[in-house]
């Protein structure tokens, strides 16, 4: 109940006689609505409602004398009448709290350096991650910072990476920290290919065939939720080397597209990429990646798997090798293949089957 007390009537008046009640218990009143007329030594005054509310109880009958500061009317709601203290005012709130348990925070293991040493590094513009500590327990000393400063001074100013190179630095750092890479390698004997075969088209077809045979490499892995999505469509990211750096535009739904159309799309995509004309939405959300580094150099590699994908196919430099055919040596064209996969989501068996399927498709003549 909210108790409304007879307010100070001014002029030193301490009491008033209740002349007439204008409300009764149960009434809803509006703010400023006259509640009661009281007579003081000076006059009859109306006491207005200090707030809106429902009347619960009236204190005193007509002709009774009410004292200033004594209860006059009880309204519904509000504080309990027990103040719960003999001094001051203890606030009573209605909020109910429910504390959520604090999550476990991971241990921080950062750079160890005294504040003075950090300030020195800042002053000399030295990145502490580049400084080799010589102090106990990995502590970077002032000397260490000064040594690093001397070395870097001799090397000249560093180039701060920007744009595509910066993105590559950041995403590779993230990928390296997270992905559990494993790589298997093999050779595809492509001697049966016709002369005008397009390496890229055959590789794309082989990836589609392999994804059909072993879908778990065409998937996205979510490390937070520890879950994966096997994807129906193959959106193939193509690693493209540009003057600005590495970009990976995406050919969507390659499993549905005809070879001729793919060929022209691919050519256009690569050109647009090199001219920096590819829209951002075509640079993301691939389901698997192809890196044809062999067009430059290199046989086998273990390229970086970029989350959330779980596999990247590496195609090496095609060369003529001596192989065994019907127990006799022969010279055939060989396409080295590397398959790097995220072992958090893909097993060795799955990767092997994927690679075998690729090889089977690549080794066909047509």
């Amino acid at each position: 109940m909210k108790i409304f007390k007879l307010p100070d009537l001014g002029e030193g008046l301490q009491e008033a006689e209740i002349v007439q009640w204008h409300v009764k218990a149960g009434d809803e009143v509006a703010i400023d609505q006259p509640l009661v007329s009281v007579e003081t030594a000076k006059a009859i005054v109306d006491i207005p409602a200090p707030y809106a509310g429902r009347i619960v109880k009236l204190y005193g009958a007509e002709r009774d004398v009410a004292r200033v500061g004594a209860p006059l009317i009880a309204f519904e709601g509000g504080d309990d009448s027990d103040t719960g203290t003999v001094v001051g005012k203890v606030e009573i709130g209605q909020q109910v709290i429910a504390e959520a348990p604090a999550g476990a925070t991971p241990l921080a293991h950062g750079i160890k350096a005294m504040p003075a040493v950090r300030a020195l590094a800042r002053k000399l513009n030295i990145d502490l991650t580049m400084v080799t500590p010589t102090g106990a327990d990995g502590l970077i000393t002032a000397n260490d910072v000064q040594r690093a400063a001397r070395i870097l001074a001799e090397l000249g100013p560093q180039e701060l990476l920007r744009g595509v190179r910066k993105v590559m630095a950041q995403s590779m750092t993230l990928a390296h920290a997270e992905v559990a890479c494993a790589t298997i390698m093999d050779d595809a004997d492509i001697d049966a290919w016709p002369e005008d075969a397009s390496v890229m088209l055959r590789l794309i077809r082989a990836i589609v065939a392999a994804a059909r045979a072993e879908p778990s490499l065409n998937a996205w892995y979510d490390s937070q939720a520890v879950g994966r999505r096997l994807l129906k469509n193959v959106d193939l990211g193509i690693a493209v080397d540009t003057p600005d750096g590495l970009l990976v535009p995406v050919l969507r739904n390659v499993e549905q597209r005809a070879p001729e159309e793919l060929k022209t799309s691919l050519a256009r995509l690569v050109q647009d990429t090199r001219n920096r004309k590819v829209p951002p939405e075509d640079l993301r959300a691939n389901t698997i990646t192809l890196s044809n580094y062999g067009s430059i150099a290199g046989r086998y590699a273990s390229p970086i798997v970029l989350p959330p994908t779980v596999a990247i196919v590496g195609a090496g430099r095609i060369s003529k090798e001596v192989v065994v055919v019907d127990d006799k040596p022969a010279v055939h064209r060989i396409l080295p293949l590397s398959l790097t996969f995220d072992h958090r989501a893909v097993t060795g068996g799955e990767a092997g089957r994927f690679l075998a399927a690729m090889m089977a498709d690549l080794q066909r003549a047509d």
Partner: protein
Amino acid sequence: MAQITLVEAVNLALARAMADDPDVVVLGEDVGRDGGVFRATLGLLDKFGPERVMDTPLAENLIAGMAIGMAAEGLKPVCEIQFSGFAYTTLDQILNHAGRMRHRTQGRLSCPLVLRTPCGAGIHPPEHHSESPDAMFAHIPGIRVVYPSSPKRAYGLLLAAIRDPDPVVFLEPTRLYRLFKEDVIDNGEALPLDTCFTLREGTDITLVTWGAMVYEALQVADELGEQGIVAEVIDVATLKPLDFDTILASVAKTGRCVVVTEAPRHCSVASEIAATLAEHGLLTLLAPVQRVTAPDIVVPLARLEQHYLPGKQQILAAVKKTLQFA
């Protein structure tokens, strides 16, 4: 000039203050006829009479409380609490009234009292006689807390405390009462309150301490000196208000600091100094600030006391750790 002990210096200062100012009175248990259980008030009854040197009934609350009444009336009472453990009873009067009277009345009434008590461990007494109430008093607003470490400073700081217009809790290191002597001139000259005393200048490390531990700290400084390490030794002397500027300037010079107190670790005055160094001197520090303190346990009785009180060994270990940090 005389070579006197610390407790004799207290006695000298009291006699001096009482001779110079008829408003200075002394009260406490056994301070009159017996001259105080540690003889700090020896001879004062004969010199100044029983009205100014009061043997009170056995009641610490009374001693502190009536001192407040006396001070409000313009007397300058110097009350003695016989032992540190009994000083806790006076926290009520000191905290709730002495430290507040000036503020409560907006300067109309004030409280120029001094409360003296022997503190600290090391004399192998029964329980409750080895307390370090430094931090408890230092936490109280409106008072000063002073802790001398030598006869000269006891003389000069006690005179300053008695003359100060605000309440002063004067903690006396029992263990040093008679441990050594010093030349003290009875010239009535006060030493400054609110300031540290740099007892040794140094470049390699700053030792900050007060009370009885100054004695050990100086010995440690000597030993370090033989090893080519020059330690700066600072006697804080006034624990509240504390002269942080001197300590910060010293650490700016040396980069390394060990704070030594015989009080228990948690919420000690040493912690206040360490926190202030972290707040205002962080960039001058070459190593973390070390606190050498007693552990957070009940002061043991005599047979284990030497394992409780920090000593030269602990101070040296802390110094070594600090110097070897990087």
